[in-house]
């Protein structure tokens, strides 16, 4: 009865002049129209919540996969006497508190100390979890667990904002989360592919710098330089080149800041130039493996090593040159792509060009291969 009354009202309003079906369709249209006026934003929010939910399912899957790979790898190569799952779960929740920056003087050294402590603590944990591993495997396991830790953190942060958005029904909380999700998912997928690379000790995209350095020093006499670096002196284009890289093939970025400062001091600052080779983030549309050149300390991370290199070169006014291999975040932490491996020879050519153009014969230069040296020996 009510429907008939509504249809007659629609007729009186002149909204439906055809047969009953047309009138019903018109009525449905108006109901939808009015509904969207009042509840449009809420419907939009539910659609966004649904999208976030889907991504959260995927993040949960990736996180669980990360934990599983970490536990299985520890069991496989570490031969633990007890089940390492509980210790892995505790490891995944570790946090690091950065130094107070209200008075920023000396913050670099405080951060350096905290990072050293963290690194030592995590390595000790790995040794406790997997007593049978050698030094190379400790580095690889630490990297695997750090990738699992990153996945755990991403999942928990996204879940936090999802639940907060659902609880408060705030469009803006959900909208912000939904807007950054493609980038978050890309990063999570990159860490997911990094997990197995680390577990198996495969070179990753970020290792292009150490790979170039390794290619230059392979077969030369190698010495160790603090901290966790190796150095070799070779002849290059009539100059003496001191090549530095993290000691491989374990997953290790070492501390190139300390190594560069030490080599500069050993040579009393008589260095014509420092050339840094690293992986650099590409913009969308740029090609993977593209080699470009610039000025400055090409090194990522928390900034401690960059600071040390800048300080050491500034002291003796040594020019800093950089050669970068373009790749995106996914390529940087996943197994090395062929395009990046193929770029090594182009980088060497570019480094030779920088040396011949920017220095004189007989000069000494430092070439630093920056990045994670996992799967790259010397």
């Amino acid at each position: 009865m009510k429907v008939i009354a509504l249809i007659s009202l629609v007729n009186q309003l002149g909204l439906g002049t055809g047969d009953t079906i047309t009138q019903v369709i018109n009525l449905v249209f108006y109901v939808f129209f009015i509904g969207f006026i009042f509840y449009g934003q809420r419907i939009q929010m539910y659609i966004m919540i649904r999208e976030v939910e889907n991504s959260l399912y995927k993040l949960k899957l990736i996180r669980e996969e990360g934990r599983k790979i970490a536990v299985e790898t520890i069991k496989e190569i570490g031969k633990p006497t007890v089940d390492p799952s509980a210790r892995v779960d505790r490891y995944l929740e570790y946090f690091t508190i950065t130094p107070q920056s209200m008075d920023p003087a000396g913050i670099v050294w405080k951060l350096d100390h905290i990072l050293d402590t963290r690194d030592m603590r995590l390595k000790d944990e790995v040794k406790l979890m997997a007593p049978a591993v050698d030094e190379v495997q400790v580095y690889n396991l630490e990297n695997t667990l750090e990738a699992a830790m990153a996945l755990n953190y991403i999942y928990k942060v996204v879940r936090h904002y999802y639940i907060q958005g659902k609880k408060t029904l705030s469009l803006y909380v959900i909208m912000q989360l939904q807007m950054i999700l493609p980038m978050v998912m890309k990063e999570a997928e990159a860490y997911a592919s990094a997990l197995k690379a680390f577990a198996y000790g495969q070179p990753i995209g970020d290792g292009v710098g150490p790979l170039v350095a390794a290619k230059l020093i392979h077969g030369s006499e190698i010495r160790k330089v603090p901290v966790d670096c190796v150095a070799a002196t070779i002849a290059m284009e009539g100059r003496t080149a001191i090549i530095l890289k993290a000691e491989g093939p374990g997953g290790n970025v070492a501390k190139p800041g300390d190594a560069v400062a030490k080599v500069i001091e050993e040579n009393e600052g008589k260095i014509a130039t420092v050339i840094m080779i690293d992986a650099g983030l590409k913009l969308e549309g740029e090609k993977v493996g593209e080699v470009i050149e610039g000025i400055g300390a090409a090194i990522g991370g928390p900034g401690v090593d960059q600071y040390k290199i800048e300080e050491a070169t500034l002291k003796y006014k040594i020019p800093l040159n950089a050669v970068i291999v373009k790749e995106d975040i996914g390529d940087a932490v996943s197994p090395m792509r062929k395009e990046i491996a193929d770029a090594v020879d182009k980088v060497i050519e570019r480094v030779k060009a920088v040396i011949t153009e920017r220095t004189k014969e007989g000069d000494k230069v430092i070439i630093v291969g920056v990045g994670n040296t996992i799967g790259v020996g010397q």
Partner: protein
Amino acid sequence: MTKASTETSTTSRISTFVLAIIYIVLVLAVIALIIAVYAFSTNQPIASYGSLAFIGVVALILSGYMLFQSERRRVKLKLIIQPTMTQLECRKCGTKTVREFQRGDYVFKEFGPCPKCPEDKQIITAIYKEVKEKEKPFPF
């Protein structure tokens, strides 16, 4: 690990209740369309089958879309791991061999003898994965 593998979630992505409703709507849409086609073929007036045909088509599109969406989500829930290759090179004759990555491989690791000149050892010169770009190239 050495072969391309996919791992799929076992998490239920769409509730059985919703799935049952989608299938019921799909069946009703097909029935409505069959009746409409029958009415059309027996030369009945358009008013008797027009609404059925309209409702049938709309319901078919909607239920098909819902099913497609749920399937698309399921496909997305995969971790694709590309195979990684190891390139071996003989230091004397330069012969290059590519094989699948094995645990313990690292760049500049000395390997077994070269198949062509057995007195010389091979060395691992590269470890990489080959990625086929799926994205369409942009005109810029």
